[in-house]
């Protein structure tokens, strides 16, 4: 019973933060309506979103999430953007595309989705499909450097998986 109630906390917190940030002001009216909406959303959706409460309230994981976001959007993303931009502007368009297998070794849904969206958000790689039983992503890669699982894993998803394990697993 108490775990059921604890589960409400992360969802309601996230809803409240989004509500206040989008509103952009902190008057008593905003706080009252925000708390009401947060409670309602948590009651409706917490069982769909949270499985392990202790994990979701762990500050170290949150810190890793922030570090990963900063690192991802400043360095990894910028490199990939420049690479694909070069291919677009180049008059001959050097393309070498193909769909390759990329293995992953994480268990939870959140970790899988973090890796998959990180791959897709990086220009140059798009997750076309995934196989949950064999633990494989099928990734469309703009410049196929090799088809072996080791090569693809090293080139595409190693960094993401390292952080995803720290954040969600």
């Amino acid at each position, binding site marked *: 019973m108490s775990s059921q109630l604890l589960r409400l906390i992360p969802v309601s917190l996230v809803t409240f933060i989004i509500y206040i940030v989008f509103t952009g*002001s902190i008057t008593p009216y905003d706080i009252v309506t925000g708390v009401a909406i947060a409670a309602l959303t948590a009651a409706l959706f917490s069982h769909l979103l949270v499985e392990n409460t202790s994990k979701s309230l762990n500050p170290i994981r949150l810190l890793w999430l922030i570090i990963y976001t900063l690192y991802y959007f400043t360095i990894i993303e910028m490199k990939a953007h420049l690479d694909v931009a070069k291919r677009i502007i180049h008059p001959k368009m050097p393309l070498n595309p193909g769909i390759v297998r990329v293995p992953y070794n994480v268990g939870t849904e959140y970790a899988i989705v973090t890796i998959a969206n990180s791959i*897709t958000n990086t220009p140059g*790689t798009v997750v*076309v499909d995934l196989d949950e039983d064999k633990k494989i992503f099928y990734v*469309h890669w703009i410049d196929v450097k090799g088809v072996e699982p080791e090569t693809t894993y090293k080139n595409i998803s190693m960094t993401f998986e390292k952080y995803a394990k720290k954040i969600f697993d």
Partner: protein
Amino acid sequence: MIELVKTILFFIGMGLVGLGAVFDLIGALGLLRFPNFFVRLHAATIGAIGGAVYPLIGVALMAPSLESFGQYRWYLMGGAIITALFIVLAAPTGSHALARATHRAKVVPVEPKVVDHLEEDRG
């Protein structure tokens, strides 16, 4: 001190907005030039992340310095941040959903290609 930080953030924001405009143009060009749907997905990613998320974050960084907006500059900042957050979540998912459906329904062939393991595994 706070003024200095605000000014630095303002110029970083301006840089991000300009970068976003350039990436937007490049993404559009890529969408036009690339030969096939699956390759165009990468150009669309540039358009969505480089062309929308970076300028939105840039506007959010610029917002605290815009004094004439008064109280409502936090409204501008919050709207920009939440929109950026939503696009970060939604754009890759939309691309993935479209790619998977297109590959399953065989609407367009995967041409040119070096290798297609998904086709092999599905048989």
